[in-house]
Each structure stands twice: as C-alpha cells, then as structure tokens.
C-alpha cells in the first residue's frame, strides 16, 4: 500500500514530477547512448587490434622488440606452433618472419616492416584478407612468389594510389555537375591526383565553393584508384649481414583503418622472404596466436609460453597497452559520467521532494497521528523519491535502447567529422553502438542509490515536526 501511495503521490503535481523525470530521462539517455557509442568504438578498435594487428597472444625473442634484429627469433617455430595449435582453447597459430627494409617504386621509397607469412594459415589468424577494398586487388595467392600485399597508406606514399574522377561522378558531385560546375568537373576526369591537397583544391575550384568535410571524404574514397601489378622493390639486410633485395608485384592493397599498420606493413610469402634473406629453415620472428575465447588471454599465456621456452609471450594487452587502457577506461566511463550527472540530478530531486514534503506537512502529521510510524513515513518518502528517479531513468534507457538498437543496425558514420584522424589512431570511422544490459542494470542500481540518498533530507524534514504541530499547519 505504501508503494501505491508513494506512486500516486508522485502524480499530485504532474508538471513538477514530469520535469524531474525528464531531467533524469535526458541525463540517463545521454550517458547510456554516449557510453554505447564509446563502447562500440572501443570494441571495434579492440577487434581491429586483435584481428588485424597483434592477435590475442604473440611470442618473440625477448630482445626482438629492442631493435628488431633479424637474428633474434624463434628456432623450430613451425614444430612448436603445430604442437601449440593442438592445445585446447587455441583457435589458430601463425609463424611469421619480420624483416625491416625499404620499399621503393620508380618514384618513391618508404621504410617498411616486411611480414613473411603463410597466406593460407594467416587467413585463420588475421583478417587482412578481408580488408581489401573494392578494386584493391587480391590477397596473396597460395603460391604467391613475387607477390606483395601492401597497406593503402603505404600505397599512397609510394604513389601507387591516386585520386581520379571516373566517368560516373560521385553522388555528391552529381547535383553540382548538373548545374553550374559541369564543364569544370568534366575537365578533371582522367587526371591523376597523388596528393590530397591537390585533389581537394581542384574539386573546390571546379565546384566554385568549399565542399564539406563529409562530401570531400566520400568523394575521395570513391575516387581512389590503385596501381595494381606495379613493381615494388624491397631492400633489406639478410641473415648473414648482406644487403639484399628483390622486386615484387603488388597483388593487392589492404586497409585495416589503422594508418600505423597500413603505412608500414607489407605481406609477402614467408618461404620466399626466408630464401631471399637466407633465414634458417623453421626460424621465425613472431608467433601470433588467436584464441577460441579471447576474453581471458592471461589464462592461456602460460600454456603458450611452455611451448616456446626462453621466449617472451605477451598478451594483446601487453602488446598494445594503450588499447587495453582505453578499453578499461571506456568500460568504466558510463559509471563516471553517470555519477557526475546523478550528482547534479540529485540536487533537483532533493529540492522537489522537499517541496512535496512541505506541501503535505498536515497530511504527514495526520498519518503519524493515526499510527503510521517513522519507519513507514521514511519508507514512503524514500519510495516516492526512488520511483521519481527510476521512472525518468527507465524512460531514458528505453529511448537510448531504441536509438542504440536502430544505430546498431545502420551504424553511425563519423567519417565526415574527422575520418582520417580516427583512422590515424586505429579507430573505425563507422561505428556500431553497443548496449550492455549488465551495465544498464548496474546503472539502475546507481540511480536507486542516488534516489535513496536524495530522500534522506526530505524524509528527515517530514519527521522533524511533531504530529500535533504538523496538524496545525494550513
């Protein structure tokens, strides 16, 4: 009954209660939706880090990270990897040869990390074969001698990628082309722009106005062309200390959306690079391990380490501490935001409940006079406060839930904000918000706690006056 009275009491002053509920709804909505976006962004970053960069675990020579010396590797790595792959919880294992070198075309050169991989095995460990864009060529073939797979950013640096308008203009330009800018835009067709700035300037000039960042980003993505089958010369130091090199043909371009990976890594056949660099058979610099369940890599670490005595085994959290740190931070961000917002909302709630108690002084006096004890009066005020907070919170969660469910399907495009900036830090420009019901339940508990705390002052005020005095008030 006290619960029923508390609920009905809320609706005595509809406007006042609705304002408080709206404040809670808005506050909780912004926190839940904001957190879902952050979690979605971070989950994607983590996925990319694991599936395109470091896997769940990696094994290296303990000193390899210091200077990436070609001699610091793992002997008999293939046998150890085979044995590791049979362990429970291990999904797949890839052994790699890593050699620092220079990649050069006729026009440009750039420093690279040459990754010698077994293309078929690598498919089970990383998603590199899945991140080849449209018209970006193919992944390394099984017997891929002489083939090289390079990142999009490196392709741009080596002038193996350029902007060129097709005969069919991008959608963003079509509306302009139909009107005033058609001849100017037509004149750009077929021209190769290797620099962003030159292409953007040309587009802006042809359109007669400055295009938005969103339009520019989209036009650039649609106009990017790759020079496939072009020759790239890799130069590197061999195992015996000699400078060596070989020419490769670009079979494909990958785009992990992490500019740091796309700008440095190139993939070639492991056996081929081993031969060119005179690396002993079975020798590898890196063993990458993908787990069945990646949530607890620390538990598998010892087993992996046991297969490679004297070597250094690290989890993705140790290999990319920045990602692990950001993930921890994002996992807790909702609580931090919610605590701050709840603190502000609690002041409004206390004020509202103080007013409600003040208005009902005589009624509260009557209730205590007829036999409602202090505990029950306190409980009634507390329930009213908590119900007021929860109602707004449920509304906020519902609205956020609907929006998150919708955006989880359609995604949120952040490319027009600063797409290249996101990619430079390894984040996807297209994110899918993620709602976690466990955290929502915990947030609800926080709101209830805030409601209970907010009820203390009004309830004490309600109990402070003697019933006989309360009954005298008008």
């Amino acid at each position, binding site marked *: 009954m006290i619960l029923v009275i508390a609920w009905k009491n809320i*609706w005595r002053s509809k406007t006042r209660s609705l304002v408080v509920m709206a404040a809670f709804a808005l506050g909780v909505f912004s926190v839940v939706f904001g957190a879902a976006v952050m979690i979605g962004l971070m989950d994607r970053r983590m996925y990319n880090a694991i599936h395109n960069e470091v896997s769940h675990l990696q094994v290296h020579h303990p000193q390899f990270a210091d200077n990436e010396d070609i001699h610091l590797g793992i002997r008999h790595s293939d046998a150890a990897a085979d044995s590791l792959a049979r362990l429970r919880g291990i999904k797949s294992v890839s052994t790699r040869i890593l050699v620092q070198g220079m990649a050069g075309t006729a026009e440009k050169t750039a420093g690279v990390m040459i990754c010698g991989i077994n293309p078929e095995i690598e498919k089970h460990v990383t998603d590199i074969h899945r991140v080849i864009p449209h018209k970006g060529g193919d992944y390394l073939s099984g017997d891929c001698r002489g083939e090289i797979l390079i990142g999009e950013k490196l392709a741009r640096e080596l002038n193996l990628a350029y902007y060129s308008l097709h005969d069919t203009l991008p959608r963003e330009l079509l509306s302009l082309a139909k009107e005033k800018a058609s001849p100017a835009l037509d004149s750009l067709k077929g021209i190769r722009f290797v620099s962003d700035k030159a292409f953007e300037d040309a587009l802006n000039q042809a359109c007669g106005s400055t295009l938005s960042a969103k339009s520019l980003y989209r036009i650039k993505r649609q106009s990017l062309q790759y020079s496939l089958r072009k020759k790239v010369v890799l130069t590197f130091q061999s195992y015996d200390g000699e400078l060596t090199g070989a020419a490769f043909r670009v079979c494909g371009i990958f785009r992990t959306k992490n500019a740091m990976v796309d700008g440095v890594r190139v993939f070639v056949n492991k056996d081929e690079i081993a031969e060119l660099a005179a690396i002993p058979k079975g020798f590898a610099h890196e063993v990458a391990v993908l787990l069945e369940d990646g949530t607890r890599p620390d538990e598998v670490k010892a087993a992996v380490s046991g297969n490679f005595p004297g070597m250094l085994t690290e989890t993705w959290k140790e290999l990319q501490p920045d990602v692990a740190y950001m993930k921890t931070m994002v996992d807790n961000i909702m609580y931090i935001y919610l605590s701050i917002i709840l603190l502000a909302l609690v002041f409004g709630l206390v004020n509202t409940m103080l007013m409600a108690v003040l208005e009902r002084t*005589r*009624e509260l006096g*009557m*209730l205590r006079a*007829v*036999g409602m*004890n202090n505990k029950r009066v306190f409980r009634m005020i507390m329930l009213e406060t908590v119900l007021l907070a929860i109602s707004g919170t449920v509304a906020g969660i519902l609205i956020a839930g609907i929006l998150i469910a919708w955006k989880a399907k359609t995604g949120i495009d952040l490319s027009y904000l600063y797409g290249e900036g996101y990619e430079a830090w390894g984040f996807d420009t297209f994110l899918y918000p993620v709602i976690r019901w466990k955290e929502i339940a915990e947030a609800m508990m926080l709101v209830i706690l805030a409601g209970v705390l907010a009820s203390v002052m009004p309830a004490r005020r309600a109990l402070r006056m*003697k019933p*006989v005095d309360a009954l005298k008030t008008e």
Partner: protein
Amino acid sequence: MNVLETRSITRIYKEAAGEIRAVDGISLTFQKGEFAAIVGPSGSGKTTLLNLMGGLDRPDTGSILVDAVDICGLNARQLVDFRLYNIGFVFQAYNLIPVLTAEENVEFIMQLQKRPRAERRQRTHEVLAAVGLADRMKSRPAKLSGGQQQRVAVARALASKPKFVLADEPTANLDSKSAENLLEIMEKLNREESITFIFSTHDPRVVARARRVITLVDGKVIRDETA
C-alpha cells in the same frame, strides 16, 4: 468500565510572555459508550486536552490511563503503535489522503495494523455502509462533499476498532445539514455499537446531542455535567 482516565494532567507552554498553562491539573474519567463534548471558549485548552488524551502530546505532570495503561510511560515508537490500535481520530479538516479513494483511505489504517486482506475489505465495507457511503467507496476525497469527507474520516477512525474516538471540532467546516447528518451517524454508532466518542467543540448542535458536557476555562474544568 473506564476506557480513559486523566489524573491531574498539566500542560504548560513556555512563551516569551511567560508560561501558559493550557491544561491545568485536569482529572477526568470516561466510561465505555460515552458521548461526551468538551466545550469552552477559544484558548480554553480543549484541543490541547484532546491531544494529550490521544497521545499526540505529553503532559508535563500527571498521567493518562487508557484501559489502565499509562500512556505517558510509553516511548515515542510504542505510542505510535498504541494510537494505531487503541484510538480513533477525526480532525476538523477531514485530513484524508487525497490520492486514495474513500475505500482506500479507510482500508489504509488497517493495513498499518497488518490485518488480513479479507478482513480489511469486510470491515471497510461495514464502516462505510455505517456512515452511509457504501455507494461512494471508489470516490476520491476531491469528488466528495465536506460532509461526505468527514463521514469517511469517521469510518477511518472506526475501522481500526479503537477503544474510543477523539473528534476535534468535527462539524466546524460543515454546513448545518451535513453537520446534523454526521452527528446522527455518530450518535447512532454510539447508541448501537457502544462506541465512545469524545468531542472538542464550539458547535451547539454537538453540545445538544452530547450526553456529557465538560466545560473548560483557562485549562481547568469548571463544569462536568451528565444528562
């Protein structure tokens, strides 16, 4: 059989101008089934006496016995429970819970007593029928007239099966017809069910129906007449 007895109770209020003896050494005894009115001019101590007898206030000296229990010796928590199970209150301003229906207002007091649902329902219907509001049980106070609201208040006071009902100026806010109607109901309940009613009042209509009239002046009983 005494249901209520006050023994030389005094209530003193300390104010800037000095002490006010609102109730000054009053000793009274009430038997079961009395229909008594406490009358007197404003400031004579009627309401203070009623509050003391109802356990809403404590006397500075003296004792108050309800069914031979000295309520002055009870602590605050015990006193709340004592009021809940032993005393019915009717206030001048009705003091119903506006968000509850007449039925819920009456039932609420029995919920505080933790009585079973079936018993609550039956008693609610009984007392509301007794005050002539069987057809207005689902109405909220705002939809009832002043007289009807006060009848709900009487029903609420009776619902808990108290030893006596204290009514502070119950007809003060009512028109003549409603007041007469309310008094008739209370008189009937007193006569047929031996419910003890003690009123504080200015209203001559209440005085006319009371079988005992206690007159207070300056906190003292100057007359105690039984018809």
